[in-house]
C-alpha cells in the first residue's frame, strides 16, 4: 500500500493541453474521486499514474518512489477499465489468476488466492464461467477481483460503474466501498457522476480543461466551492453575480446579499455568491423578519414534484432560481404565486469572479 503524489504534471496532445500543471496528493489508503466533465483530463491523469502514458513535465511518485522510468508492469498498480477488459479467451478464474500466473506464483498459491478474491467479490461459484456468460455487474466484479488479487499498491478505476444501470450501480458502489475498506488500498476513482463522487470518496478532485479546479473532502467542496464551476458541477447551485462588498455582493439592482463563508474579497471587485437550492426557504409572504437573513421576492414559474421533495423554479429580476423543499405535507405553492425566498448568510458562499 502506498500513497501517490502527482506534482506539476502536464501532458499535451499536439497543441491541446490535456493536463495543465496538475498537483494532487493521494493519501495512503484513501478513496479519492476524480470528477470532471468529458474531456477534462481524468483518464489522461489516470493513465499517467498507471504508466500507459508519460507526462511531458512534472513528477509522479508511488509510495515515495519516483516512477518516471518504471514501466506499467513494474508499478504494481491495479486497474479497472470502463469496459471491464476481461480476457475473453480465459475463464473467470483464469482472468483473476492472470496477474499471479505471469508473476510465476505456484499453482496452489494461485488457486487459493483466486478463490479468496472471487469470494471477496461474491462470485466464488462462477470461476468456471467465461466472461461472456456473465452479467454486467458480475463482469465488473471479476475485473475488480482481477485487479486486487495481485495486492497492488494503488487501485485505479476509470468510470468502472458507468455501464451499469442505476440500481446495480448503487449496489456496486456499496460493494466497492466495502472491499476498499476491507483491504485498505489507496484508490483513485474516475467518474463523472457527482453523486457517486460525493457518497463514496474521502476526497474529491475536480478537473476542468486539464486543470485541477478544487480539491478536498466532499463536504468542503460542496459547502465551500471556490469557483462557480465547482459550485455548479458538484451539486446544484443558484449563482448571483455582482460587485463585492467585502462580506457579500451587491446585485445590479442594488439588492445586497450577505455571504458568511467563502473567499475574502476586497470591496468593489466582481464577485459571485452561490447558494444551494435546499438551503433556501420559500414562503408566501415575508412574515416576521428574521435577523440578518438574505431575502428576495419572486414568482413561482414551475414546480416539479419528485416524491420526497419538490423543486420550485422562481423567477426574479430575469433570473430563475431553484429551491428544493422537502415534502412534509405542508401546503404546496401554485405556479404563478408570489413568494419570498430566505436563506442565511452561512449558506451563502462568496466566490471571486472567474
Amino acid at each position: 500500500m502506498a500513497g501517490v503524489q502527482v506534482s506539476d504534471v502536464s501532458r499535451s496532445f499536439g497543441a491541446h493541453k490535456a493536463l495543465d500543471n496538475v498537483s494532487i496528493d493521494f493519501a495512503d489508503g484513501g478513496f479519492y474521486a476524480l470528477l470532471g466533465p468529458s474531456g477534462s483530463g481524468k483518464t489522461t491523469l489516470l493513465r499517467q499514474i498507471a504508466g500507459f502514458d508519460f507526462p511531458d513535465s512534472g513528477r509522479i511518485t508511488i509510495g515515495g518512489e519516483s516512477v518516471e522510468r518504471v514501466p506499467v508492469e513494474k508499478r504494481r498498480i491495479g486497474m479497472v477499465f470502463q469496459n471491464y477488459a476481461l480476457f475473453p479467451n480465459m475463464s473467470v478464474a483464469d482472468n483473476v489468476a492472470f496477474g499471479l500466473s505471469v508473476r510465476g506464483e505456484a499453482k496452489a498459491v494461485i488457486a487459493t488466492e483466486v478463490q479468496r478474491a472471487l469470494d471477496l467479490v461474491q462470485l466464488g461459484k462462477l470461476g468456471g464461467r467465461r466472461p461472456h456468460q456473465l452479467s454486467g455487474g458480475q463482469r465488473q466484479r471479476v475485473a475488480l477481483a482481477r485487479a486486487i488479487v495481485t495486492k497492488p499498491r494503488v487501485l485505479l478505476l476509470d468510470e468502472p460503474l458507468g455501464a451499469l444501470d442505476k440500481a446495480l450501480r448503487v449496489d456496486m458502489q456499496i460493494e466497492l466501498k466495502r472491499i476498499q475498506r476491507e483491504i485498505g488500498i489507496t484508490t483513485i476513482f474516475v467518474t463523472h457522476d457527482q453523486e457517486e463522487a460525493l457518497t463514496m470518496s474521502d476526497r474529491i478532485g475536480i478537473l476542468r480543461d486539464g486543470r485541477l479546479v478544487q480539491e478536498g473532502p466532499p463536504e468542503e467542496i460542496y459547502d465551500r466551492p471556490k469557483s462557480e464551476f465547482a459550485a455548479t458541477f458538484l451539486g446544484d447551485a443558484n449563482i448571483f453575480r455582482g460587485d463585492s462588498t467585502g462580506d457579500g455582493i451587491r446585485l445590479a439592482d442594488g439588492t445586497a446579499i450577505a455571504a458568511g463563508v467563502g473567499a475574502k474579497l476586497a470591496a468593489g471587485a466582481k464577485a459571485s455568491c452561490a447558494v444551494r437550492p435546499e438551503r433556501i426557504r420559500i414562503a408566501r409572504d415575508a412574515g416576521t423578519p428574521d435577523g440578518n437573513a438574505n431575502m428576495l421576492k419572486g414568482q413561482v414559474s414551475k414546480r416539479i414534484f419528485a416524491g420526497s421533495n419538490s423543486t420550485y423554479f422562481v423567477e426574479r429580476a430575469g433570473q430563475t432560481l431553484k429551491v428544493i423543499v422537502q415534502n412534509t405535507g405542508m401546503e404546496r405553492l401554485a405556479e404563478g404565486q408570489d413568494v419570498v425566498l430566505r436563506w442565511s448568510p452561512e449558506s451563502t458562499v462568496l466566490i471571486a469572479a472567474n
Partner: protein
Amino acid sequence: MAAATASRSGLRSALPLLAPAYLWLTVAIFLPLSAMVFFSFMTELPLSGKPWTFTLGNYATFFSQSLYLTLLLASLRLGLEVTLWCVVIGYPAAYVLAKVLKGRSREAIFLLVILPFWSNGLVRIFSWAMVLREGGILDTALNAVLPFKINIDLMYSYPAVIIGLVHSYVPYMVLTCYLTLQAIDDSLIEAGRSLGASRLQVLKRVIIPLSMPGLVAGAALIFVPVVGSFMEPRILGGRTGTFYGTVIEDQFVAVFNWPLGAALSFILLAVVLVILAVASPVLRRAA
C-alpha cells in the same frame, strides 16, 4: 455462441441474400467438379471420341507408383513451409498494421501489402525470376555492395519456389490476422500490462490466443492452394520444381490424360480435407 444462435434464427430471412451465392457456387463449381469426379472413373475422356468404360484404374495408378506419393509428400512439405513463412512474415506485419500504425501510414503500408494481390500472377513470378537468376537483380545488387564476389543463383531451386509462393500468399495471412488483431481491444493489452505482464507475456497469453482464428483461417487459405500449386514451382523451380501440382497440370495440358489428372486431384482433395479435419480441433483448443 450467441452469434451462432442469432445466425440460426436469422437464416430464413437471410435466404434470399444467400441464394445468388449458392446458385453461383452450384453452377460454377459444383457442376464442373461433378463432371471431374465422373471423368476420374473413366478410361478415356468421352470428348475424345474413343470408346470408354468405367474404371478404378486412375486411382490405382496413384498407389501403384511410389512417385506420386513422394511428390504428394513433397507438396505437403512445401505447403507447410510456405504457410510457416507466411506466419513468420505476415503475423508481425499484421500486428504492426493493426496495433502500431495509425492513419495515413497504415493505409500506405496496407497498400504495399496487398499489392501482390492486384498484380498478375505471371508478372509477379517472372519478376522474381529476374531478381533471382544468376546475374539477375539480387546478384548484381549484392555484388555492387559486397567487397567480394559472390554468385547467388537462386533461380530453379527449392528456395526460389518458396520465395515466389510466400510472396504470392502472404497477403492472405496479413489480411486475416489484421482483421482479428484489429478486433482486439487495446484495453485488453493495457489490462495485461497493469497486471504485471511484460509485452511479450501479453503477446503470448492474450494476443496470440485471441488472434488464433485469423492465423488458422490464413493458414488454411494458404496451405490448400500451395499444396496444389504448379505455376510457381514450374517457373521458379525449373527441374527441381516437380511437385504434385505440376504433375496434375501435366495430365491436363501436356499428356491429355484428364481422367488420371482428375483422380490425382481428388486424392489431393481428400488428403487435404483429412489434414484440416485432424488439425481443426487441435487448433480450436489452442485458441
